[in-house]
């Protein structure tokens, strides 16, 4: 437990200090949402209708692009070697790093979403639904992204490889996240159905992500 907490605390400290990546995701999120109306037009009715989708796409890209250096930084300075050698199972170490990343990148996105919802003229119900689905769904994005981050580190390739690998994997999360948000406002499906599936996807990713990423890292150290 001490080791897990140490990893969590360390990663959050690094993210919050100078040079850390916390808040970068939110800034990206804000920028994407700001740019959208320039392409779509300032029609508030249209924005209201597609607002949940815009917010979900923005959050999806923001949470994945920031994952790039999650393991690569530890690999480059030799920390990953020592973490792999430690008595803490690598799957748990990966999960701790994923949680730290979600707390510093994913959670701020959830908090920012209602404010950005105002820009898109969303109704209070829609804002609540988007925030709730993002709260449930962004951990799935982060933990699925762990696999891509591990692959990019094992292959010593950074940059765009991660999103290219991971974005297709996030399709189900996107479908049910947006479906649940829309269901809360316009229907016709009740909110509960897609939302429960979204919860299930998140729970599955919490298990699959760390195991797949752990296995990748262990193989990739060769």
């Amino acid at each position, binding site marked *: 437990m001490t080791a897990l907490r140490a990893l969590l605390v360390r990663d959050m400290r690094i993210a919050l200090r100078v*040079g850390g990546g916390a*808040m*970068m995701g939110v*800034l990206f999120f*804000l*920028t994407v949402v*700001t740019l959208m109306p320039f392409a779509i037009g*300032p029609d*508030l009715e249209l924005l209201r209708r597609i607002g949940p989708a815009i917010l979900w796409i923005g959050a999806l890209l923001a949470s994945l692009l920031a994952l790039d250096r999650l393991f690569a930084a530890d690999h480059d300075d030799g920390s990953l070697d020592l973490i792999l050698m430690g008595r803490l199972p690598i799957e748990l170490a990966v999960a701790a790093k994923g949680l730290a990343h979600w707390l510093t990148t994913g959670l701020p996105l959830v908090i920012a979403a209602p404010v950005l919802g105002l*820009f898109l003229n969303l109704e209070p119900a829609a804002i609540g639904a988007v925030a709730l689905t993002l709260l449930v769904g962004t951990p799935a994005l982060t933990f699925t992204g762990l696999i891509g981050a591990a692959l990019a580190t094992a292959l010593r390739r950074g940059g765009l490889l991660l999103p290219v690998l991971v974005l297709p994997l996030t399709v189900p999360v996107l479908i049910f996240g947006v479906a649940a948000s829309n269901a809360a406002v316009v229907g016709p499906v009740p909110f509960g159905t897609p939302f429960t599936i979204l919860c299930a996807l998140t729970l599955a990713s919490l298990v699959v992500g760390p195991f797949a990423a752990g296995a990748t890292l262990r193989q990739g150290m060769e």
Partner: protein
Amino acid sequence: MAWIDLANPTRFLRIVDRVLPWLTALTVLAFAFALNGAFEAPDDYQQGATVKIMFIHVPAAWLGMFCWGMMTISALGTLVFRHPLADVAAKTAAPLGAAFTFVCLLTGALWGRPMWGTYWVWDARLTSVLVMFVMYLGLLALWRSVEDPARAGRAAAILTLVGALNLPIIKFSVDWWNTLHQPASVVRLGGPTIHPAILIPLLAMTIAFTLLFVALHLGAMRNEVLRRRVRTLRLLQAQTARGA
């Protein structure tokens, strides 16, 4: 007092220590006068008491722009004259500019709710300010991502200059985009037709806000100079420690 004197951070600190209390007092007085005027000002026949949000909104918008102008001059100071205080001024102005721009957006939204029935419309003026706010945040992110202030300073100076060149282009593009889409007619503040009973407190508030900005900025610059000294001392401590 020659300009070169200010280049010496020690002398700068001494001057700030002497000026800041007076400046603070002046700011408080200015706010007392301006706020009094703002409360006394009559309600608008169309907007009611909502118009008083303008007493905060307009000065904040002015400072948001003023601050970028100041950072542009500082950026030239950093890149061309290598003035040691220039990037201190630029760095400490960025969060202030972002804060005033945020206040401008926030008050705009609060004003827009009763006026337009929604917190936000993609009106040309508002949208330009939003883009400027995003650029401020980008600048803050740049300052935050590099630990060495000298290196960060040059990068930020270039970004500031590029931003200063781009802001008018962005403003023009947004206006064009907006007219293209012909938005629903919204209530606008008519430019020169403001009644003197509103105009005078508005000017007073603008002056008070500007004084507030200068006081905050000088204080922040002093803190930044001291922070950099602490950093230098700590670097020195590492260098002179046993067996460095």
